[in-house]
């Protein structure tokens, strides 16, 4: 079965149970006690030791007509919290998988992208090949790490730890086609309720070709630090190799020309 996550940020309460469950199940090391001051987000992003990451987006809202004038100060500071649990996108065309020179990164039978930890030698190429900034190298270990899509749990018929722990069903897991349908229904439902800015994030019309981590959120992808038009880096291979071939041709021709045009001369060192 080809599976996926559907992370519905309109249901997320920002409890970070997914982060904790992921760390516990996968024995991911602690990532420090940094205080960022960015809302309740002290993790900042996905990384080698953060495979689920809850974002806290604060949006100003206008309550001036809704509260008593004595509370004007409160009204002008009012905001809405949007939470969204981010995760590796498990791209259909995965930049990390294509770039990996050891074959450590593979596609699993569930459609996920998996780094085989016994093969990765920490070359670091996957890190710059990821259009979502997901993969990173763990300095004290030397290897690259990211969400495994709980490959071990899926193997024995369990759901990923994050989806299991989520108390509000903000993180759902299942067959990808069914989840896509579910997402479409959910967005229709939200819009019918007047939440006009609810959208599905599933970049199928880009070179990434869709992901195995679908999202529902309000607003633009950029608000959630997601690229609106992600690109799989392999699209640059053709022009780059063409340029390399042109460079090689010019090098060969130029060097041959230089020697042939000065043929009678002997080297000064002789």
């Amino acid at each position, binding site marked *: 079965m080809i599976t996926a996550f559907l992370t519905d940020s309109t249901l997320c309460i920002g409890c970070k149970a997914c982060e904790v469950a992921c760390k516990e199940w996968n024995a991911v090391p602690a990532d420090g006690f940094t205080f960022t001051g960015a809302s309740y987000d002290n993790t900042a992003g996905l990384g080698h030791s953060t495979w689920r990451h809850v974002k806290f987006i604060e949006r100003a809202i206008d309550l001036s007509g809704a509260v008593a004038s004595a509370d004007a100060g409160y009204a002008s500071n009012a905001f809405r919290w949007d939470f969204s649990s981010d995760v590796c996108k498990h791209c259909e065309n995965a930049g990390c998988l294509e770039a990996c020179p050891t074959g450590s990164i593979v596609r699993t039978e569930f459609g996920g992208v998996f780094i085989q930890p016994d093969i990765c030698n920490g070359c670091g190429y996957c890190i*710059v090949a990821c259009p979502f900034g997901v993969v990173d190298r763990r300095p004290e270990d030397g290897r690259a790490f990211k969400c495994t899509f709980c490959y071990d749990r899926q193997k024995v018929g369990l759901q990923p730890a994050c989806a299991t722990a989520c108390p509000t069903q903000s993180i759902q897991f299942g067959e990808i086609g069914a989840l896509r349908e579910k997402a479409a229904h959910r967005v229709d439902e939200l819009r019918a309720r007047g939440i006009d800015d609810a959208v599905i994030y599933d970049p199928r019309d880009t070179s990434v070709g869709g992901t195995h981590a679908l999202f529902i959120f309000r607003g633009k992808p950029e608000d959630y630090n997601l690229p609106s038009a992600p690109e799989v880096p392999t699209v640059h291979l053709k022009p780059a190799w063409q340029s390399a071939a042109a460079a090689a041709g010019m090098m060969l021709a130029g060097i041959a020309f230089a020697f042939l045009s000065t043929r009678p001369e002997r080297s000064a*060192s002789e």
Partner: protein
Amino acid sequence: MLVEMTDDLQPYYGFPLLKRAVWTWEIPSYFFVGGTAGAAALIAAVARRSGGSDALVRDARWIAAAGAALSPPLLISDLGRPERFLNMLRVFKIQSPMSVGVWTLVAFSSAAGAAAFADLAHRTSGGKLPVRIVADASEVLSAATGLVLSTYTGVLLGATAIPVWSRNARVMPLHFGASSVGAAVSTLELLGHRTRALNRIGIGACLAETALALYLETREDEALTPLRDGTNGQLARAASVLSGPLPLALRILASRSPTARRVAALSTISGSLLTRVAWIQAGKAEKQP
């Protein structure tokens, strides 16, 4: 007090969307050493077939062999798990420039090493047939793989998600190729080979460098910001001057002066190394468009 609130937080609290490369000094050094070795192997092969002296061919082969020997340790020491370097040879993936590069380096190292060994055998036991066969085969193979070695590094950086690299996927293979040729010629000149042919190759490389520098300086593209701004911008410009206009002027105006040739050579070599440093640092810059 709450953090600054806006209707659209862009980007998300200023946290970077993309991860930066974890590569350290070994990688630009390898780009330089490997590229120079590749171009030297090419010069050796062409020189032997088009009137270059035996001494020039011999020295070019040894530069190639030395670079081939130096490259793997540089690459291995940059790995997160150096003891697993052999995993690079588990698979061959045409879609991964790093995999293509590793296999190219393996072929190049073998061929460049064999060519240098054949040169040694030739001097000690004369030009016997097996020696000549090894010499010819390894020379052709090292020249062919050398061409890839001095240019693929541009493809490797180009095929990434980092804007300053991917938007210059066409530029970097040309830039690194020209830089490699310049460095190889200059190394030969420092070893005492000051022929007109080498000066002409040097002029060609300097012209290409100058043209690329002008193009990078004048092109309107936000993605080039990390290559233009701040310390890295100064580094990139220094690299351009050292590998382009400065040695070009010396090579054209004072090609008969050994001192001028030596200065031009040293300038080109340092410019070539700085070029790789500047490109890699640009991709590691905090601010990407």
